């Protein structure tokens, strides 16, 4: 466990707080934060002699001459420490910032605070304190500082810009609007232009990003952040001439252009080009081995490529240089915890998971992913680099840290190419997700990212992943919900041509889920209209550097507007029935489907009269006819299944419960019912299929494994029985000896006498009196022909 350094706000006695992630906050936030000090330096009041000295130290630091900068800064501190003049105190604070170690950071804050106390009318100390807080990832205290400035100086553009940075850091509010407000107050504020360029770059609005970067350069041609962002935009759009111009300019400002390269590396990360990010960050570190930002980008992305040891080394160095960095601390702590994890290597896959779950999860995940790998290879004409590394975390916070360095990420899984990470089923409540479909989803990303050389936009990659989920497993993948169709009918979904915004900037919590499903429908439409080769061709087009309109034109022969129109028509046709009866365009009008369901549910509540049951059933059947694919736990099919079971109509129950399990990948209760009904009906194969679906939701119930093993043995499917007996053992049941004995029996039934013998010896080694195992050992010996 490492301790995170904290800045103590001496005026408020507030220690740096733990930063909680909100979606979208991450490396970009650090980058934005790291730039703040430099920005603030350039807006200092008119220089005194002391300021001239400290400005020189800052210039040396900006050029990458760290040692000379520190010497110059130390001289300033030595000369001015103890001065009671505010201007000197600010100079001392700036000098401490240049020195940069943890103690100096705290001294810098004290100096800025002292300046504010000395001259409360001068906002400089408070502004610099705010920027320093933000530099050290303490947004709440930064906000307090900026608000304090604005209280006394309501039109202070730098304070407004500071608030914009806080909003961006916390992903709250509207950083773009706040930055524009700062520019309104001071159109010559270079840092505000840089901030706008960064925000537009993150939003993948590259033209706007370049425009604002150029405006910043027009105001100040020595702005290294502006040249770096212009270079990043050029790199992302493949404009090599503009890139070279920007790099040359940056190199004039910083001869060993570490900051420029790490900005490009960050841009590569944002577009999921992790290998290129590592290459660029490595160059940045080679130029400046003390660049925390470069070391952080390097280490984080080495880990994303599965280079865990190298990544840890880089992050260790970064954290030693900047002990305030919560991202790096969290990741290093997680790596410590992961030392207890178990690694299972099978063929093309390396599975890393908590030791008590690794064997169990590998039993299901590796064979499924192996089959999927083969079919995806054929479909996309590309083989994802192997080994594919899948990391699983039984604490969702650990998964979140693995992904973005902070707790709070809402996702279930992530793909960095051939390194995948996800929650174990135990990380969430049972029924919260399906770990099989999640793993398949992430594996599909490994193919779509790889085939496009990581240039496919997120919306398209997500759409293909969801489509592959639906293709693979019964009920897997998102399906049309009432909420989705309602949003469609009311024109609340984004058109396909703007769907990336649904992922990057969702307007409401549901929009992300809607966007996944919409993207998958688009992929489905493309396959239907253009054939199976169209989706791989789109990946190739992205790989060739085309943007989305270019890809549409080359592969689909359509403009974005035509694609949007086509998709609208296709969706209307596909969901004609539920769109007619289940949803309304007018939010004040309740649909026939909803009215019918409400009536049926109200009538079927506790104490419903038996006489009503037929009419209740009729209502649910009517609702079902309006929206046959509604598979949720509150849908008509599930109600009808339960009603049928209650009246002993097992056949009717089976028909309806199958509708639910066909359409809902997390339908625990429905699959339990289906397994029971099919087993009772003698449909062992069907019962096994239902049990398997349950295991993809939660594999921890040992009784399910035993049931499945028994059914498999009954059907002479001994291989399946062996898998299930292995699963029982992997759950570490109370009676482990008996579980291993049963595994030995199953192995023996497959003819694997050697494996059976190995299990028996292991059991009897610990429990030599175990009579059943003794008998089987004798039986195997006899079967092998040994003398008795």
């Amino acid at each position, binding site marked *: 466990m490492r301790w995170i350094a904290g800045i103590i706000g001496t005026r408020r006695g507030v220690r740096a707080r733990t930063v909680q992630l909100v979606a979208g906050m991450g490396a970009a936030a650090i980058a934005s934060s790291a730039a703040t000090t430099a920005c603030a330096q350039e807006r200092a009041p008119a220089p005194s002699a002391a300021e001239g000295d400290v400005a020189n130290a800052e210039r040396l630091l900006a050029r990458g001459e760290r040692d000379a900068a520190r010497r110059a800064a130390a001289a300033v501190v030595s000369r001015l420490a103890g001065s009671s003049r505010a201007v000197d105190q600010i100079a001392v604070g700036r000098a401490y910032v240049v020195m940069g170690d943890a103690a100096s950071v705290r001294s810098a804050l004290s100096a800025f605070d002292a300046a504010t106390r000395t001259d409360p009318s001068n906002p400089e100390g408070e502004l610099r304190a705010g920027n320093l807080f933000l530099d050290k990832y303490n947004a709440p205290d930064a906000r307090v500082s900026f608000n304090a400035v604005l209280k006394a100086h309501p039109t202070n553009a730098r304070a407004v810009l500071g608030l914009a940075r806080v909003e961006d850091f916390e992903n709250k509010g509207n950083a773009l609007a706040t930055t524009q407000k700062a520019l309104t107050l001071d159109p010559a504020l270079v840092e505000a232009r840089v901030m706008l360029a960064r925000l537009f770059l993150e939003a993948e609005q590259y033209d706007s990003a370049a425009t604002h970067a150029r405006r910043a350069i027009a105001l100040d041609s020595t702005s290294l952040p502006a040249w770096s962002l212009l270079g990043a935009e050029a790199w992302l759009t493949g404009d090599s001439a503009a890139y070279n111009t920007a790099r040359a300019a940056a190199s004039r400002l910083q001869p060993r252009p570490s900051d420029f390269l790490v900005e490009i590396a960050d841009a590569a990360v944002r577009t999921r080009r992790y290998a290129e990010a590592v290459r660029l960050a490595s160059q940045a570190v080679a130029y400046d081995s003390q660049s925390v930002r470069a070391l952080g980008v390097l280490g984080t992305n080495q880990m994303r490529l599965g280079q865990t040891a190298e990544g840890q080394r880089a992050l260790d160095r970064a954290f030693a240089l900047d002990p305030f960095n919560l991202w790096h601390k969290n990741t290093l702590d997680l790596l410590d915890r992961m030392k207890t994890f178990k690694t299972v290597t099978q063929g093309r896959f390396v599975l890393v998971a908590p030791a008590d779950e690794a064997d169990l999860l590998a039993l299901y995940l590796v064979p499924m992913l192996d089959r999927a790998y083969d079919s995806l290879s054929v479909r996309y004409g590309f083989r994802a680099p192997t080994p594919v590394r899948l990391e699983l975390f039984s604490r969702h916070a650990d998964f979140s840290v693995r992904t973005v360095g902070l707790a709070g990420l809402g996702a279930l899984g992530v793909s960095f190419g051939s390194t995948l990470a996800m929650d174990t089923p135990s990380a969430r409540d049972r029924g919260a997700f399906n770990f099989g479909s999640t793993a398949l989803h992430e594996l599909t990303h490994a193919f779509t990212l790889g085939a496009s050389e990581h240039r496919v936009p997120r919306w398209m990659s997500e759409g293909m992943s969801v489509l592959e989920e639906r293709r693979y497993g019964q009920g897997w993948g998102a399906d049309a919900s009432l909420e989705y169709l309602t949003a469609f009918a009311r024109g609340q979904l984004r058109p396909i041509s703007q769907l990336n915004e649904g992922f990057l900037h969702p307007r409401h919590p549901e929009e992300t889920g809607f966007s996944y499903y919409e993207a998958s429908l688009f992929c489905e439409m493309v396959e239907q209209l253009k054939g199976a080769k169209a989706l791989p061709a789109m990946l190739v087009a992205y790989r060739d550097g085309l943007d989305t309109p270019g890809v549409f034109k080359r592969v689909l022969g359509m403009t974005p507007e035509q694609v949007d129109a086509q998709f609208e028509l296709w969706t209307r046709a596909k969901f004609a029935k539920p769109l007619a009866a289940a949803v309304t365009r007018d939010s004040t009008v309740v649909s026939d489907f909803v009215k019918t369901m409400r009536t049926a549910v109200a009538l079927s509540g506790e104490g419903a009269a038996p006489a009503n049951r037929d009419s209740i059933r009729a209502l649910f059947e009517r609702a079902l006819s309006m929206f046959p694919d509604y598979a949720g736990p509150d849908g008509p099919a599930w109600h009808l299944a339960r009603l049928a079971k209650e009246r002993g109509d097992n056949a009717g129950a089976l028909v309806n419960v199958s509708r639910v399990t066909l359409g809902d990948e997390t339908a625990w209760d429905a699959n339990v019912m289906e397994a029971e009904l099919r087993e009772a009906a003698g449909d062992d194969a069907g019962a096994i299929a239902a049990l398997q679906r349950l295991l993809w939701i939660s594999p921890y119930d040992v009784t399910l494994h035993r049931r499945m093993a028994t059914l498999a043995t009954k059907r002479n499917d001994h291989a399946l029985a062996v898998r299930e007996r292995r699963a029982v053992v992997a759950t570490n049941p*109370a*009676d*482990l*000896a008996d579980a291993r004995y049963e595994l030995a029996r199953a192995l023996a039934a497959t003819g694997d006498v050697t494996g059976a013998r190995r299990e028996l010896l292991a059991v*009897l*080694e610990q429990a030599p009196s175990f009579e059943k195992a*003794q008998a089987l050992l004798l039986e195997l010996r006899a079967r092998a022909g040994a003398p008795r």
Partner: protein
Amino acid sequence: MGVPEVAGVGMRVTTRATRFRTRTGACVGAAVLAGVLALTSHAGVAGAQATHVFVVQGLSGDPKFRKQFDDATAEVVGAARKKWSVQNENVVVFAEEADAARGIQRASREGIAEGFTALSRRVKPGDMVLVLLMGHGSGEGPASKVNIPGPDATAADFATWLSGFSKQTVVFVNAATGSGDFVPVLAAPGRIVVTATKSAMERNESVFATHFAKALAGDESDSDKDGRVSVMEAFRYATGETARAYTSTSRLQTEHAQVSDSVLARRVAFGGATSNDPRVGALIAERQELEASVAALRGKKASMETDAYERELERLLIAIAEKTKAIRAVGGTP
């Protein structure tokens, strides 16, 4: 430690030392206690040791808890009578309501005290006493108590009542909530104290009693498959299943059981078959020697080549299996 030299029907005591004594040529007594054969060489008399079961169900406060306590009691009493061959008169049950037809006495403080007094008169040196408490706990330290009708019974009360059992091995299980402080008050040589919680402050609803009763009564907890359930096996089973119950429902575990003497808890066991047939006794003795050889071989595992180890292990296990077959063949229970 107060470990009795004679293992009797029902609760058993096994030690590695006694097993080795067997290997040095102990004779077999007229009655054979499977798995604890060595001890008969010292006793020479079958059935010299008896097991006594003393169950106290506290106030339930809710029909759900009442059923839990009743079910756990039924499990333990049923196992005592059927699997451990405990005599009816050696089973005493107290509950919040007396039921003469079922031989259940009211769990008042005075009644329990009288029950212990009566039991102290019945027991013989070397006997085993299993005390099982269930219910809701309160208080702290020596004043920790199990809530019963009328004045509650405190840890100090039980310490007083058990003071007359210094020549017996006592397994005292307080499976009530908030029972943790019973351990320091009741721990004593020759006595194993098990509590459902680690402190008096863990007072939320507990599932330990259910799992501990199941462990005593069932076969799943018998991890070494020797036909007996040691207190440690039962404890491990119950703590494992308790943890699983919380994990499977995504709840934070609010009870953490503890055991006072894990060494003794490994030695003291319940169950095991008996036979008066000297042929069976001889075969069991031979098998136990082989089992001891397996234990000795395990100790050498790290220093042996895997193949050689497995060959020798298999040779011994086959020999054990043959002995088991032979015991069955002469009508014995292995």
